């Protein structure tokens, strides 16, 4: 759906925007202010609960501000690192796979990324853990790498799609006025693919924040720890607080992604 919105990347004047398009845009606008309000309300409700709630001894061990602060930080660190890895791998890789010399390899890498996403992330995570835990890797990296593979596909696919969707006539115009191939990539193809890449990144971010709750199974921390603890010890308040905070964080990150799509994309296309 985001790809369709960013699909008119040609030099032709923007064709009339249909009514459906306008409705979509209005929905997006409402979401842009509604979503952070919901997320903030959820966080506030949970924090108030932690502050005034009547917890037993076991619950109080996790349901306290310092502990939640630490888990939140861990969760954000995990998500950020996953995102950084996804960007560092998927954008250059996607770009390479649209070059003349890289095109033949595109199906192979897309297949790998597809498998990465299709396989249950918990499975990928645990298998990866089994493969490397004896090598002495930190649990942070054991969590981050498989989840990054899991979240790679949207950015990879959209980078390829975004670059491919740039009007060939435009690229020839660039070459025709004397831009070298690297310059055409840097000044035309990549900037014009930015809306696609951002849309993919937003999806990847949400996947990353959601999957980071699984990091706890390999000792990576994050809100998953509260969910896990609450479940194993039958302490529903701990489970609920962990789950709701993870959800609120995902909503917030998705909202930031939406803002980025709105403000970072090339100006002439907005």
């Amino acid at each position, binding site marked *: 759906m985001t790809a369709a919105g960013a699909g008119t990347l040609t*030099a032709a*004047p923007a064709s009339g925007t249909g009514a459906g398009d306008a409705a979509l845009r209005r929905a997006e606008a409402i979401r842009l202010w509604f979503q952070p309000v919901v997320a903030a309300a959820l966080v506030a409700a949970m924090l108030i609960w932690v502050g005034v709630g009547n917890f037993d001894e076991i619950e109080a061990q996790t349901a306290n501000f310092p502990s939640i602060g630490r888990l939140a930080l861990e969760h954000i660190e995990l998500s950020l690192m996953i995102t950084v890895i996804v960007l560092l791998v998927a954008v250059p890789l996607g770009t390479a796979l649209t070059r003349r010399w890289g095109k033949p390899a595109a199906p192979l890498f897309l297949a790998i990324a597809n498998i990465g996403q299709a396989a249950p992330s918990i499975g990928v995570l645990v298998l990866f853990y089994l493969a490397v835990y004896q090598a002495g890797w930190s649990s942070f990296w054991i969590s981050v790498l498989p989840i990054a593979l899991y979240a790679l596909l949207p950015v990879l696919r959209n980078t390829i799609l975004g670059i491919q969707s740039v009007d060939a006539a435009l690229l020839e115009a660039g070459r025709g006025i004397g831009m070298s191939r690297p310059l055409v990539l840097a000044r035309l193809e990549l900037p014009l693919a930015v809306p696609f890449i951002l849309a993919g990144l937003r999806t990847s971010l949400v996947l990353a924040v959601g999957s980071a709750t699984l990091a706890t199974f390999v000792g990576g921390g994050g809100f998953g720890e509260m969910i896990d603890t609450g479940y194993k010890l039958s302490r529903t308040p701990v489970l609920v607080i962990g789950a709701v905070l993870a959800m609120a964080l995902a909503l917030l990150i998705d909202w930031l992604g939406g803002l980025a799509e709105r403000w970072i994309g*090339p100006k*002439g296309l907005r």
Partner: protein
Amino acid sequence: MATTAEQPDATVSGVDIHLERLCKTYPGGHGVAVDDVSMDIPAGEIVIFVGPSGCGKTTTMKMINRLIEPTSGTITIGGQDTLSLDPDKLRRTIGYAIQQAGLFPHMTVAQNVGMVPSLLGWSKQRIAARVEEMLELVGLDAGEFRDRYPRRLSGGQQQRVGVARALAADPPVLLMDEPFGAVDPITRGNLQDELMRLQTELRKTIVFVTHDFDEAVKLGDRIAVLGPRSTILQYDTPDAILAKPSCDTVAGFIGAGASLKQLTLKRVRDVQLTEEAITARCDETPDEIRRQLEERGRSFALVLDDRDRPQRWVHVGQLAGVATLAEAGKPITDWVTTQSTLQDALEAILAEGGSAVVTKERGRYAGTIDIHTVMDTISHLRETHDSTPAAAPNSASADGPA
């Protein structure tokens, strides 16, 4: 930097292009796209490649700036063998304008126009000044359009920016690939007029590809009618091709009504303009103009703006009681330039009723043209054409090709 990269700054006019035994063969059985084409394109002329789609005219043109590498043969531009140059640097010295302008949608008009100068390493101030100059040249107000993005422009405006971008680094040679193919007929006519006006100022060497023979006749100093595999069926002036098509295929391509098309070869500058209209500047007082009109027994005056551009016709009766000339009378809706064809002039005359205003470079007032002038020219053309019946292309054999 290649030697040609410095030339554009030094010369105002174009340089000659020479194609020698040019061939393009695609591997894998797609066959021969261009077969043994040799051609001299004189400096400072507009040469049109015209022919049916798929005849290889665009391929031939793209070999000039090496967007397509020739399989064999040589191309020299201003005596320099293009194959000896770096292709990217070569292209920076050749203007390139294409259908639908090919503007970069994420860059402003100024960034688009300034692209080649910035590739050539010009300073920011020099680029900014050049962008302003170029926009002015193609008739766009720099202050209004500089910071716009292409999608906020009409098709015609985009095309003007495309031409400005092609000319920005002052290249001696300009390649235009059906540049006006995607705009409506009216805008198209205006853009063609603009190009001819520009060309009288700039005298570039322009290679222009089109499949529209009327456009070729209107714009070309010379026309190359191309057949399959880009073979040159006829390469001559429009007049000569219309008068004596080299073969039935060319005659078929010209189509019916060759003698009428010859009318479009006559430009307004070729006929005597009427220069007796009374003109007034916007800032002159209405009373003063009325006095002049009454003195000379005339009823209409032409109001010009501060750059001598015609604005409105005003009748003597409309001058009473108005404070300023800027608002009086009726605005001019249709006019022609000295570059316009007589056919355009005729249309403008009909639209304006009786006579049409003619402008010269930068929209300045040149005179007026009236219906009698056009009619005299038509009858004169008919007389000369009737005296050379052998040249008539409308023989029975020309009916064949669709």
